[in-house]
């Protein structure tokens, strides 16, 4: 493999990692506050892809209207799910919330089957994104740059919100010690809703970028990316936002590199993420950046 | 040979030292108390003996064997049983089932024998049931045997926990604040009861308590812990008059 090709793969890996990171942050924030693995997050991602498809391609809105609308609607979907399915179970044993998350995921997938049909829909890609930029012998399509740039932009925005604003501070406090945070006057319900708004909005952004890159939209498209994003968050350290981002980037990078260096293992690219999860949980459960303690036996 | 030797154990959690260089030795049949202000590390000591925590330094020798860091079920098999600060009963199970769980470690039949329903298993189960009911009777809980443990009032719950702990046929019983939530009258009954249990079952008892009346009333020997260190050890009157102990408890009202 030439160095040029390697750089191309590197770029692809970072792009994929960026998309995983957008999803991973949402998982991480929800887990940090509610200790809930939001299985439905990947399906919010999927729904957002469909929303983008309809607003942009079916209703013909220009992309700079359709995409923000998608993000808003995606965020809204996240909040609705939280209110309807998770809030009533906050006092219930943890297994109930997990079952509810799975139930919501199931429901969303089935609704997608009914409303959108099981046949894949074709997302479009504006031709300018297919333009290839070459530096020397390294050729990278514009889409890759755009997706990396967009992911990084949104992640920076999210980091700003979380680390430099009052609501962000409240969310962090809540994820560390919800009892005390509540006593300090932080409105738990509002903050949790905000968490879902931000997380789901990011997922929607990720969905748009994903659909531009992989233009086949299916009802079950969110399951695997969602799972991998969460694994990335575990790798980086659940409970640590930079950890989630780092882990997700590493996972995306690793996945692409695996296929690049060992093309015979292409069929196993999904197992790569699972293998990482298994190794991490067994040997370094708090992840690379030492997130929260994993409840151990 | 002493039954329990806590040999200079230290427990550190990251930067925090919960227990520091503790030495305790107990002979068979003793009734020893562990007291100290809140946060002194008393439950941590129990957790180290019963295997929930592995000491950072030092060893725990029980009945001649080094059980340092052995998991709680191994400690139970060796003969250490305990109750918890907030009675950790199996709330969904009946009272007698709770006690039956305590018997489980003595069960010889395999799971397959149990599933198939071999007579050898049935006999063992019947014997365990009889022993459980006998224990419940000894603790005055017979008519509560079939009740769900979660629905019981506080007092009986604590007694069920003790029955369950006794079911493991321990040599050493660790009682973590057995009198918590009891008034003076109930505490007095509990004192007599604990002493009776020690005599009848031939146990050694190590108990943590806040209520001075209970501790001074039954314990033959008392250890005082403060900030993870042993600051005093001796018979009740020695401890009561020890200036360091008084200092540690200053500001804390006792009903002694």
């Amino acid at each position, binding site marked *: 493999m030439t160095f040029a090709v390697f750089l191309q793969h590197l770029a692809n890996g970072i792009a994929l990692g960026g998309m995983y990171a957008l999803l991973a942050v949402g998982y991480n924030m929800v887990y940090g506050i509610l200790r809930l693995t939001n299985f439905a997050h990947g399906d919010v991602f999927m729904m957002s892809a469909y929303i983008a498809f309809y607003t942009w391609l079916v209703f013909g809105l220009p992309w700079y209207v359709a995409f923000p609308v998608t993000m808003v609607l995606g965020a809204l979907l996240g909040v609705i799910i939280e209110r309807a399915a998770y809030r009533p179970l906050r006092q219930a044993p943890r297994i109930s919330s997990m079952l*509810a998350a799975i139930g919501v995921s199931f429901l969303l997938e*089935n609704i997608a089957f009914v409303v959108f049909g099981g046949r894949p829909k074709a997302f479009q890609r504006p031709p300018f994104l297919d333009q290839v930029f070459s530096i020397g012998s390294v050729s990278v399509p514009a889409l890759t740059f755009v997706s990396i740039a967009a992911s990084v932009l949104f992640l920076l925005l999210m980091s700003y919100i979380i680390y430099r604003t009052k609501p962000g501070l409240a969310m962090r406090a809540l994820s560390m010690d919800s009892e005390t945070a509540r006593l300090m006057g932080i409105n738990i319900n509002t903050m949790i809703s905000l968490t879902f708004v931000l997380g789901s909005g990011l997922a929607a952004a990720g969905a748009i970028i994903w659909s531009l890159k992989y233009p086949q939209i299916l009802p079950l498209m969110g399951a695997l990316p969602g799972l991998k994003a969460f694994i990335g968050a575990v790798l980086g350290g659940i409970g640590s936002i930079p950890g989630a981002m780092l882990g997700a980037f590493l996972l995306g990078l690793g996945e692409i590199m695996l296929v690049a260096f060992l093309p015979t293992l292409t069929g196993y690219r*999904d197992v790569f993420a699972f293998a990482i999860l298994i190794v991490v949980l*067994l040997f370094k459960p708090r992840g690379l950046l030492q997130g929260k303690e994993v409840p*151990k036996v | 040979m002493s039954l329990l030797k806590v040999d200079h154990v230290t427990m550190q959690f990251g930067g925090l030292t919960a227990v520091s260089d503790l030495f305790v030795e107990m002979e068979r049949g003793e009734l020893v108390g562990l007291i100290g202000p809140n946060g002194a590390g008393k439950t941590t000591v129990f957790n180290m003996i019963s295997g929930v925590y592995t000491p950072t330094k030092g060893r725990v020798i029980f009945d001649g064997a080094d059980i340092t860091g052995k998991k709680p079920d191994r400690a139970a098999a060796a003969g250490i049983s305990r109750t918890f600060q907030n009675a950790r009963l199996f709330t969904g199970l009946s009272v007698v089932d709770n006690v039956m769980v305590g018997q489980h470690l003595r069960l010889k039949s395999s799971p397959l024998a149990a599933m198939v*329903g071999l007579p050898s298993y049935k006999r063992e189960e019947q014997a365990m049931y009889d022993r459980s009911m006998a224990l419940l009777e000894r603790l005055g809980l017979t008519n509560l045997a079939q009740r769900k443990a979660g629905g019981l009032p506080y007092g009986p719950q604590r007694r069920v926990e003790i029955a369950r702990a006794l079911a493991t046929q321990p040599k050493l019983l660790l009682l973590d604040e057995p009198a918590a939530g009891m008034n003076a009258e109930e505490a007095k009954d509990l004192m007599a009861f604990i002493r009776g249990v020690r005599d009848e079952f031939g146990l050694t008892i190590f108990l943590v308590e806040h209520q001075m009346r209970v501790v001074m009333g039954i314990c033959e020997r008392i250890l005082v812990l403060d900030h993870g260190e042993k600051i005093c050890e001796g018979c009740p009157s020695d401890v009561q008059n020890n200036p360091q102990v008084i200092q540690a408890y200053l500001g804390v009202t006792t009903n002694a």
Partner: protein
Amino acid sequence: MKIAADRGKVLSLLGLVLFGLFLWWATGHWDPFLLRMLRLCGIYIVLGLGVNVVNGLAGQFSLGHGGFMLVGAYTLALLTLTPEKKEMCFYLVPCIAALRTLTLPFVVALVLAAILAAVVGFLVGAPALRVGGDYLALLTLAFSESIVVLAFNIMPITNGALGLKGIVDYASVWWVWGLAILAIFLTRSLAESNYGRALKAIREDEIAAEAMGVNLFYHKTLAFVYGAALCGIGGALLACINSSIEPSMFGFYFTFQILVMVIIGGLGSVTGTVIGAPLVTIMLEALRFIDNPVQLGPIRIPGIIGMRMVLFSTLLLMAILFFREGLVGSREFSWAGLARAVASLGRGKKQAG
């Protein structure tokens, strides 16, 4: 107490004989569709019990059963297909030499399916159970999906996405229900035994259970391996009844379906699964009419494909949100209990009348 227990046994035996007579009558009078439903009900009871032992009885939230079902299904298929059939299936990549000419009787294949699934269950459970509750679900899901991916890729053994076709349907009503009743009996015995108590104790409070001498790893693994074996048997029977299998059948979509049956019946209750699994199976079948157009006199209501699963998922969510206990909660069936229920009904009528 012993007399009541004996009476219960006699009644159970009687019930079994009656059920057997019912099966005999059904096989003689029912059309193939109804008989298939009958068999599916039995198979899903076995699968549901496999899930309930781990998730309900032991309280360990595992999503790994899809993989175990796959192992059982493929074991049975590979061991019962004739060399000719195998040659027809493995047209892209030939089957590995060891299996190419191997054909075993159904019973042997079934036993091996259970054993292999149990072994895989152990390999998955042993590491996975060391991790806490939240991550166990994720880890077992990852293992299960990995097994599916492996099945897609190891062409010489599984024939990949092409799947295996032409499996002989050995899963008669008698085999299915015989195994189902055996599974019910063994699982109920386990639940009522002290091992069952130990598992429930782990479910309620594993720290206290461990302090009382219950070895957590041993017991959790026990539940896991037994559950995996049941899933393997269920998977094998499914392979027979469907006569063709391919890896995506055993993905998380199917995993959730079984979980739903167990939840609706009642997590932790054998009776719940025995009632819930057939109920959900029949309900799913009955709801099929929603997918198809319906003629109501002059009005034609168009069918919406997939709507029944939407309805089904909504029902599941309702169950999780409002009827968390399921139909029977964690209660178990007993003849004495039934007698009491009937008696109180009678009393109620007398008071009203």
